[in-house]
């Protein structure tokens, strides 16, 4: 009996966990008929399993939809990759442009100083070669890249605010089922104020106009929310963002703008 008890002790736990089947199960059940200690063990363990099975967390639903969570994941990946992935070519071009500018202003006087005095007569000065680094095209390119870089940054920040709203789960008043908006409202207002500077960059960001408009709408909704807001109101914003697939579009446009 004692040997059987020792041998079957672990199997009693497995039976309680719903893991003993067939012959093993029959064997343990037969032993429980004879052994009061194992029976008491079994009942105690069954009570534990029953308590776990009543735990509401077993059927907890994730608070975000798959598309919002995927957008958050991609956002996190992009932020992690950003310094390595986003070489700022225009930054590399700036010293060259600065050097060229300096050359433009300094060159005539330097050339003038270095030029030997004419012994007989001054030779006619050849027409200056066009400075390709400072061509209007190059300057326009730098300006365009700057505008697109700025627009991408703006969309990135707007995306962060909307992701925060999508994930808001901190209660500020449990009784009324209200959520704490944290800094999302304030940041939305700041972004709306900055919007014109970014959007009015003309042709450089023309392709982003549709996304800018939807981002503005979403930011306005967030900006109008109080700091402690009814869950339902947040859900409306979340649904709107989701219906417009805004997070995904922001991400794609950001990538396009970054080239």
């Amino acid at each position, binding site marked *: 009996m004692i040997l059987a008890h020792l041998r079957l*002790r*672990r199997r009693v*736990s*497995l039976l*309680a*966990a719903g*893991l003993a089947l067939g012959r093993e199960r029959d064997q343990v059940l037969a032993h429980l008929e004879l052994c009061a200690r194992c029976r008491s063990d079994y009942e*105690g*363990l069954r*009570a*534990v*399993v029953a*308590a*776990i*099975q*009543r*735990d*509401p*967390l*077993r*059927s*907890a*639903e*994730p*608070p*975000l939809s*798959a*598309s919002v*969570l*995927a957008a*958050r*994941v*991609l956002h*996190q*990946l992009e932020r*992690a990759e950003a310094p390595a992935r986003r070489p700022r070519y225009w930054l590399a071009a700036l010293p060259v442009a600065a050097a060229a500018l300096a050359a433009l202003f300094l060159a005539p006087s330097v050339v003038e100083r270095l030029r030997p005095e004419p012994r007989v007569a001054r030779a006619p000065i050849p027409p200056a070669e066009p400075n390709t680094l400072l061509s209007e095209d190059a300057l326009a390119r730098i300006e365009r890249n700057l505008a697109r870089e700025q627009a991408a940054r703006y969309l990135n920040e707007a995306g962060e605010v909307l992701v925060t709203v999508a*994930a808001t*789960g*901190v*209660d500020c008043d*449990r009784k009324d089922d209200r959520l704490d908006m944290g800094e999302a409202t304030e940041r939305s207002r700041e972004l709306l104020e900055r919007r014109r500077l970014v959007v009015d960059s003309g042709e450089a960001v023309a392709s982003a106009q549709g996304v800018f408009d939807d981002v503005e709408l979403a930011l306005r909704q967030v900006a109008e929310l109080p700091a402690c807001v009814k869950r339902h109101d947040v859900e409306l914003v979340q649904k709107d963002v989701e219906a417009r697939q805004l997070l995904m579009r922001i991400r794609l446009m950001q990538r396009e703008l970054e080239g």
Partner: protein
Amino acid sequence: MGAEGGADDRELMERLARGDREALTPLVDRHQRRLYRIAVGYLREREDALDVVQEAFVKVFQAASRWDGSADAGPWLSRVTVNLSIDRWRRNKRRGQTFSPLAEGDHLDVLADHRPAPDRGVLGRESGERLAVALRALPERQRAVVVLRHYQELSLEEIATTLGMSLGTVKSSLHRALHRMRDTLTEAKP
């Protein structure tokens, strides 16, 4: 593991490995509920669980090209989630935000601490809190075995595959965990 693995997962993982970001949403859709329940069962904190699941998918994306295509993706995802849950648990513990696993005989001290548990609002009952205390009192791996068995209904073999343990270790872990939980719950009874 059939339902959670299979050709669809393989195809999605292959697309991720090629850098196809569009493959992420269907993969999240297939697995996030399951992974969230593992994390929330382990950590008993919804916010932390959500962070862990997000982090798990980030890791999956980053490691997709190194994924061994001969194995199912489901257990691999579960293992990543369990490991991240353990990491998060340790980090919270260092910050003093959670209870530590207890040595034998220490349960009464912790149970005498009547601060509301973080998941009070979720469970809303004293029994729920006692269960949370009993789960928190388990050593890390034992708790993972209990969560995979009783929150995911995995078989012993599936738990062994997921956690990279032998079948015997899984059985003895479950046996010890249930006994320990029974003791904690009995002592905690009002």
